[in-house]
């Protein structure tokens, strides 16, 4: 039976304290959730426990022995496994190969993928997961990819499993299934650590909750002694208050889509015969499980992808160079949204290439841009030392804020948004929702794609669902989502 | 720096390495250059600039031999360097600044840079092997290698069975072209019916493979005797000849002992006395510029039969060859020379 004890850990990055005097005890047979806002230190703590980050001070003990701090591979061999939010799978490999890769302990050996992956596949069976060993990993939906990630960890006889935001990318039914598996693993005596920020989910599955704020432990408590209000109070200090939605009266013609068909990257039909319209000052929600054509449709609306037939019109006319200004918040912020090795300033500048006030001829007006970047950092409370910080060093939530801030500040007429709250904490989510609603009230037509039903319904004026490239309404969708 | 960058970097370093890998003179023969700091005084200092490695057993090697001779006989401080293109003037200036009395540039391409640099260094004499311009402290000496090539051509005309002979050379430098013309003239003199193929140039100094391929092209046209001006790439010529079992001539240096065993004879420059004579003139401050010719009459050019293959040359042919050689020496036969 395992116990993982974090003892008085300190860690600073540059001038920012990520962890200060953090002590927590995680016991086997329990699901222990670690909650906190973006930048509260969750990820750092997790990275310390799994050996990816070496703390400045303090120790971590597994069953009384100190773990090799800062040496991830050795931690893994001791039985501490981490399931990353951004999966560590090789997309071009088959599922079997990925599973085998995780069990490979040295390179100079012949490889029998079947044998190496066998155990993981057996575990999959016992968990009632259907996994096709020969499928190409990169082509699987994220939910399935996550399962493979979990299987990788389980096949190594891990005693401690650390999950980084496991529900962030999952549909509601996938979340339920994940929780079922988590409970079962708990009952088998594993020590489960869950990094999360969705209060409802945490309360649904966790036995213990620890809340971090600004790098310090605010409280550790058993599930029974807390409710969502209390947790929210611990996390942010005060309960957020959702701005009420103001219904705009006048609705002007906006985006019209007629019989739109789109081909995917491999030439497959990914969206067929879609017809809808989004008026200015309206949010149209698109729900559905990942991989049903949402990204392709979103990219087409954002004028990034060409469609194969049909029409996309703005105020009755084809898109021109003048109108509308399009804002696109992509699904995957790290690959499509940001250049991680460039500064916050450069990442924001992307949306301001056309603003005359920032440029004199071809040359940038550094002063104006600097002031603008600082104002965005300030207004969106992005946690960074300055605009010249690299975006790759920001926490996930702050990264999303960089994207959303630069796009919304551009006051786009058409906004195409995918999972805007993905991986964000309460405060940040609220903020993003508020600015989306404000943009709508300003008169933007917004296409909101989300796998999160809460998000979808709390923001959208109307909701459609996508199922294998077809648009269906909510009644048609309920059958498909399984209620 | 990511992995891709590193890979490309390695490839680039490799490419640079390959591109410059044809000089092989690092460790060899460390004795003759001295690592002296320049010191003032009466010491006689001589530098040699060559277009290629001095260990090519050919054009560059013979200058190197000359340099060694100067060191030995005159107790001079000597040094040498490969020098090409835009490095030439700077190398000359550096030697002159360091008090070198005589700088040899072993090729016509050193002539123009020497003219430019010499103006600033009146105390240093610049001497180039061939080249047309001279000044008070710029001279050119010319080995009349044409005479040796004429003799080789003469013998080739007598020896050929197919009636076809040819030549391979690095580039169509004027000095090279002139010798090949002499080779043709010699062949026509002994065998007017003989067909002399136009020279094949392979282009790159030291390119053994290129030289071999060029030779194969000549042999494909039924040539059975080949002469070369391939310098360091000569081995390619000999290898090709060996494969087709035909004969070749060596040039510049005596290459008769080449292990391929196909060399009937060599048209040689005997450079030591020439270099030594010039150095002595310079040391005695007697040199006043101009072009100095070194031919068979001064013993600087010769044609040497390979003793191992001498039985292939009937006595009457050997006799004829000797007569022609004597005629050239005495001036009775004037071998054609291009002006350059």
């Amino acid at each position, binding site marked *: 039976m395992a116990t993982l004890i974090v003892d008085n850990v300190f860690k600073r990055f540059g001038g920012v304290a990520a962890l200060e005097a953090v002590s927590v005890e995680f016991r086997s047979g329990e699901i222990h959730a670690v909650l906190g806002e973006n930048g509260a230190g969750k990820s750092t703590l997790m990275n310390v426990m799994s050996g990816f980050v070496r703390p400045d001070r303090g120790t971590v003990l597994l069953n009384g022995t100190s773990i090799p701090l800062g040496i991830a591979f050795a931690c893994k061999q001791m039985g501490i496994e981490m399931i990353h939010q951004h999966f560590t799978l090789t997309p071009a490999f088959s599922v079997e190969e990925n599973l085998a890769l995780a069990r490979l302990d040295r390179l100079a050996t012949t490889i029998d993928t079947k044998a190496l992956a066998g155990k993981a596949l057996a575990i999959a069976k016992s968990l009632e997961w259907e996994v096709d060993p020969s499928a190409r990993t990169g082509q699987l939906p994220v939910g399935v990819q996550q399962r493979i990630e979990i299987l990788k960890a389980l096949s190594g006889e891990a005693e401690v499993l650390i999950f980084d935001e496991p529900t962030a990318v999952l549909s509601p039914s996938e979340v339920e299934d994940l929780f079922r598996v988590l409970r079962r693993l708990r009952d088998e005596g594993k020590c489960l650590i869950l990094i999360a920020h969705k209060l409802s989910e945490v309360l649904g599955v966790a036995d213990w909750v620890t809340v971090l704020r600004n790098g310090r432990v605010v409280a550790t408590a058993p599930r029974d002694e807390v409710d969502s209000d209390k947790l929210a109070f611990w996390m942010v200090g005060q309960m957020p208050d959702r701005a009420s939605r103001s219904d705009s009266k006048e609705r002007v013609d906006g985006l019209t889509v007629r019989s739109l068909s789109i081909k995917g990257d491999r030439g497959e039909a990914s969206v067929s015969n879609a017809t809808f319209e989004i008026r200015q000052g309206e949010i149209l929600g698109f729900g559905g499980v990942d991989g049903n054509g949402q990204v392709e449709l979103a990219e087409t609306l954002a004028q990034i992808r060409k469609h194969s037939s049909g029409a996309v019109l703005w105020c009755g006319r084809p898109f021109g160079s003048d109108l509308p200004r399009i804002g696109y918040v992509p699904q995957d912020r790290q690959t499509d949204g940001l250049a991680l090795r460039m500064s916050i300033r450069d990442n924001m500048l992307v949306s301001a290439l056309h603003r005359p006030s920032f440029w004199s001829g071809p040359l940038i007006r550094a002063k104006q841009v600097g002031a603008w970047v600082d104002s965005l950092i300030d207004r969106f409370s992005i946690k960074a030392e300055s605009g010249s910080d690299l975006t790759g060093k920001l926490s996930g939530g702050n990264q999303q804020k960089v994207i959303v801030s630069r796009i919304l500040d551009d006051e786009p007429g058409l906004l195409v948004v995918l999972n805007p709250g993905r991986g964000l904490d309460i405060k940040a989510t609220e903020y993003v929702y508020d600015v989306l609603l404000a943009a709508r009230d300003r008169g933007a037509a917004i296409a909101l794609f989300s796998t999160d039903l809460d998000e979808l319904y709390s923001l959208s004026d109307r909701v459609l669902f996508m199922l294998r490239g077809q648009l269906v309404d909510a009644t048609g969708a309920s059958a498909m989502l399984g209620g | 720096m990511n992995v891709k960058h590193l890979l*490309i970097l390695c490839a680039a*370093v490799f490419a640079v390495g390959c591109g410059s890998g044809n000089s092989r003179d*690092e460790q060899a023969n460390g004795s003759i250059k001295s690592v*002296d700091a320049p010191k003032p005084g009466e010491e006689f200092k001589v530098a040699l600039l060559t277009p290629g490695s001095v260990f090519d057993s050919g054009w560059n090697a013979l200058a190197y031999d000359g340099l060694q001779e100067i060191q030995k006989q005159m107790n001079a401080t000597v040094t040498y360097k*490969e020098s*090409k293109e*835009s490095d030439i003037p*700077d190398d000359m200036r550096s030697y002159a600044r360091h008090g070198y009395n005589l700088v040899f540039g072993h090729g016509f391409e050193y002539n123009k840079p020497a003219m430019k640099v010499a103006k600033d260094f009146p105390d240093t004499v610049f001497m180039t092997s061939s080249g047309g311009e001279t000044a008070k402290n710029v001279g050119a000496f010319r080995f009349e290698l044409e005479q040796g090539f004429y003799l080789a051509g003469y013998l080739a005309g007598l020896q050929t069975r197919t009636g076809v002979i040819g030549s391979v050379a690095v580039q169509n*430098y004027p000095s090279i072209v002139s010798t090949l013309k002499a080779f043709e003239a010699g062949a026509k003199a002994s065998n007017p019916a003989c067909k002399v193929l136009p020279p094949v140039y392979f282009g790159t100094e030291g390119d053994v493979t290129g030289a071999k391929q060029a030779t194969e092209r000549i042999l494909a046209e039924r040539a059975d005797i080949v002469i070369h001006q391939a310098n360091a790439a000569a081995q390619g010529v000999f290898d090709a000849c060996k494969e087709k079992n035909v004969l070749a001539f060596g040039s510049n240096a005596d290459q008769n002992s080449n292990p391929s065993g196909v060399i009937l004879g060599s048209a040689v420059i005997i450079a030591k006395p020439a270099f030594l004579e010039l150095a002595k003139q310079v040391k005695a401050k007697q040199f006043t510029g101009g072009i100095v010719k070194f031919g068979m009459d001064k013993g600087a050019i010769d044609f040497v039969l390979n003793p191992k293959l001498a039985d292939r040359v009937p006595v009457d042919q050997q006799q004829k060859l000797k007569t022609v050689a004597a005629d050239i020496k005495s001036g009775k036969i004037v071998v054609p020379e291009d002006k350059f």
Partner: protein
Amino acid sequence: MKRLVGISLYPIGLLLILVATLAFFKVPVRDGLGLLYSGAVGDRFAWSRMAVKSTPMLLTGLGMVVAWRGGIYNIGGEGQFIVGGIFGGTVARFAVFTSHPWSPWLATSGILVACVAGGAAWAWLAGWLYLRRGVEVVISTILLNFIALQFLGYCCSGPLQEKAKQVPLTDALPDEVMLPKLSRQMDAHFGVVLAIMAALLIYTYLFRTRAGFRVRLVGENPRMARANRIDAGRAKIQAMVVSGALCGLAGGIEYLGMSGQLGTGFSQQWGFLGIPVALLGGLHPLACILSASVFGALLAGAENLARYTPTGSTLVYVIQAVAVLGYVGIKAYRDRLPAVEA
């Protein structure tokens, strides 16, 4: 303090590499180092030599910086350098070697512009092949290097050959067309200034202009550029053309500053040497001035070494290769050190 120690590893490492290489080739180490030093920075002639050697490398290095920043791996600097020279030589044919030559000033600028255009065109070709035909730039540029070299050989013994038609070289440019020199006894020419100006200009281009920003963005994350409707193809072609123009300029400056004529040995690996210069300069235009100077000093020093010791000029490439590998090694070592606290 730690940082200082870390950075001082580089010069110390370089010194060790030099000592080891000299020892390996049996050159007396103290004399060898002395010759390297005096050849690189020993007197004003040495400084001039170092500057002149650094100049083409700085320009081709800048070319690599722009292309690589744009995520397009141009290693055809050599070819672009050469084609630049050929274009320049062609203009020289009509501007200088005619019965009615242009005024020297006009001829010089005309030749320089032609060189830039030639390099740019050659690079554009590789960019076009990549975008329209999907040919990997790494491969196409290598092959174009060979084509350029062969083409140069053809030009020098064909249409551009000197008047006497004896040597595979073009006519030597008269002194008044050449770039102005510091003094007759030194090679340092106005091109050195041009190269440093180019470094400043490229810095401005990459970090202060919209076009340069697009290039950097496309290089850093093409998917993000796409999501923001930035035409990655256009940015890449632009990066490639600017890159080629710089390499062509390097060719022009070498032609007008140093050689004055074209031959098959026109480019002494300058295009390739730009790659380590760019990488050691961390793909930063201003840092490239430093890295090019280091390489220039190495080359100039090694030339001097070759003049007065029995080492061949090959030694310099050995030193350079070992230095590059050493740099990579030290960098890897430094990256493994625990993060330095502010």
